[in-house]
Every structure is written in structure tokens, then in C-alpha cells.
């Protein structure tokens, strides 16, 4: 058990987790930045948020995805960034599961239409759950790989 912990908690594993998840969030957040109207419509398609909220989410969520992803990769407050990303993934899992259980056939909104976005499906929910596990690794075993400031790396 100790051996498993030492492998899972190895700084190199943590670095890979941060680069993979941070990279995905940069990749998905960037193209949405200047299309808040399209993001708002995608969010509305989930039929969860009240219409008054969808524009605010369309305006702010892409920036949160990008900034948290960048911070995670560069090593600025990586645990806080991992917590934010895990929170977002939790919301995506909850919203996606609800939409699927209600039989909605909607675009995922993950990679945006012009980047080959796909229909929301259980496979995407499972993918998000795996990404949450990677973020738990970063939260439990903070890595000092690529820290912007070593002191900040443990925050």
C-alpha cells in the first residue's frame, strides 16, 4: 500500500496530472473566450440554469477555465487551481448527468462546435470523472514541478 502511495504521490505523476488537465482546460477555454454568446446558448441548452444566469456563465466560465488551466500548468497556486478545476468538473458531471437522464440530445460544449464538439454522452461524463481523480492527486500530493514560485507551490 505504501508502495502504491509512493508511486501515485510521486512528483512526476503530479506533474503529468497538472500538465494534462491544465493543458485540456487551456485548450477548451481559449476558443470560447470571444464567443460568450455561443457559450451562453450551450449552457442554456442544459436546461438547468435560469436564463438570467446563462450570460454571466458564458462571459466568465471560459476565462476561469483558461486562467485555472494556465496556473495549474505554470505552477501558480497549483492546489487552488486544482480545486477550482475539480469544482468545475464536478459541475460538468452533475449538469451532464442530469441532462442525459432527462433525455436531452445536446452538444457537450466541451470543445466548442468549430473544434469538433461532440454530442453529450456518458463517455464524456466518465472522462470528466477521470480528470477529477487527476486533480485529487494534485490536491493530496502537491508537486513542485515547474513552480512559478516554490513557496506558492504548496498553497
Amino acid at each position: 500500500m505504501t508502495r502504491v502511495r509512493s508511486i501515485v504521490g510521486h512528483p512526476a505523476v503530479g506533474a503529468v496530472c497538472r500538465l494534462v488537465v491544465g493543458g485540456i482546460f487551456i485548450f477548451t477555454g481559449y476558443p470560447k473566450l470571444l464567443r460568450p454568446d455561443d457559450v451562453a446558448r450551450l449552457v442554456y441548452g442544459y436546461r438547468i440554469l435560469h436564463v438570467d444566469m446563462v450570460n454571466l456563465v458564458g462571459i466568465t466560465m471560459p476565462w476561469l477555465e483558461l486562467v485555472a488551466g494556465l496556473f495549474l500548468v505554470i505552477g501558480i497556486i497549483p492546489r487552488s487551481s486544482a480545486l477550482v478545476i475539480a469544482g468545475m468538473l464536478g459541475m460538468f458531471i452533475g449538469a451532464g448527468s442530469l441532462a442525459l437522464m432527462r433525455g436531452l440530445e445536446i452538444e457537450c460544449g466541451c470543445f466548442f462546435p468549430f473544434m469538433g464538439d461532440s454530442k453529450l454522452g456518458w463517455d464524456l461524463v466518465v472522462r470528466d470523472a477521470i480528470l477529477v481523480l487527476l486533480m485529487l492527486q494534485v490536491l493530496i500530493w502537491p508537486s513542485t514541478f515547474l513552480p512559478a514560485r516554490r513557496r506558492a507551490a504548496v498553497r
Partner: protein
Amino acid sequence: MTGVLLGALALVAGSAALGIVVNHLSPRRIPLLPTSTETEAGEAPALALPPGLEGVGLAEAKRAFEDQSALFLDARSPDEYEEAHLAGALNLPAYEFDDYFFDLMDPIEEASRIIVYCHGGECSDSIAVAERLVEFGFPEVYVFEGGWRSWLKSEGATEEEGAP
């Protein structure tokens, strides 16, 4: 752990502020709260229409209905359409677009003007259908922003499935 939480809160607040500022300066900015482009009282607020799409209000929709100058497309689900719809409208559900579109090709191609609607101003299904039609090259496609709810409220003509 408190430091991690505080960092996360700062990250959320900072990113949200950045998003709001950039949106304010962007040529594609959208309102923080959806506001209607309708002028008629009592209509629901509308999502911002994407560039290239134009909306019509209740008054314009009524004019087009009375003049029979437009084909009305109902982007809601088939069940909702069957329950009741704008008189003369055809059903082109946003989430089953491909299944329905080819059966409706003839009337759509013959229409000089197409007006798409869904539940109400905040509904995005009409926008999704209108965008697909514009992609297919139909030039005169409009979104009825007040949608079904404002039509009912104004006591516009409706019919059930199969009714003349």
C-alpha cells in the same frame, strides 16, 4: 487548507472580473443579464442573437402571419408541437433537425421568408434552427424572439396537430 480555499476564491473572483471587463470591451459583448430586443410590453427577455441572425418582434410576426408573407417554423419538440402550435407553422425540432429537415425541404425552399420560434424569448432552439438554415444558404431567416409564449399571450391564432 484555508490558503488553498482562499486561493481558489481569488482565482474565481479574478477570472470572473477579467471576463466581465474583456466582455465589456469586446465588439461581441453580450449583456450580463439577457435583455430583450423586443419593444412590446410583457415579452420575455431574449438571449443575444449571434451575428448574422436577425430577430422579429411580436408585431412583425403578426404582420407576417396576417400577410402570409412568411413560413413559420416551430423549433420545439414534436410533442409540444402536436399539443398546439402557431396556426400554419411546420415542426422542425432543434434536436431532431436532420430527421425532419428533408421532409420540409419543399415548403422551406418555396418560402420567401422564414420565421423560427420556440417557447419564448429565452429559448435557444429557434436560434439553433435558424443558424442551420442560414448555413444551408437560406437568406431570409428570422428568429421570433417573443416566441410561443408571447404569441399565446397576444391571443394569436393557434392550431393542434392535424387541424386545418
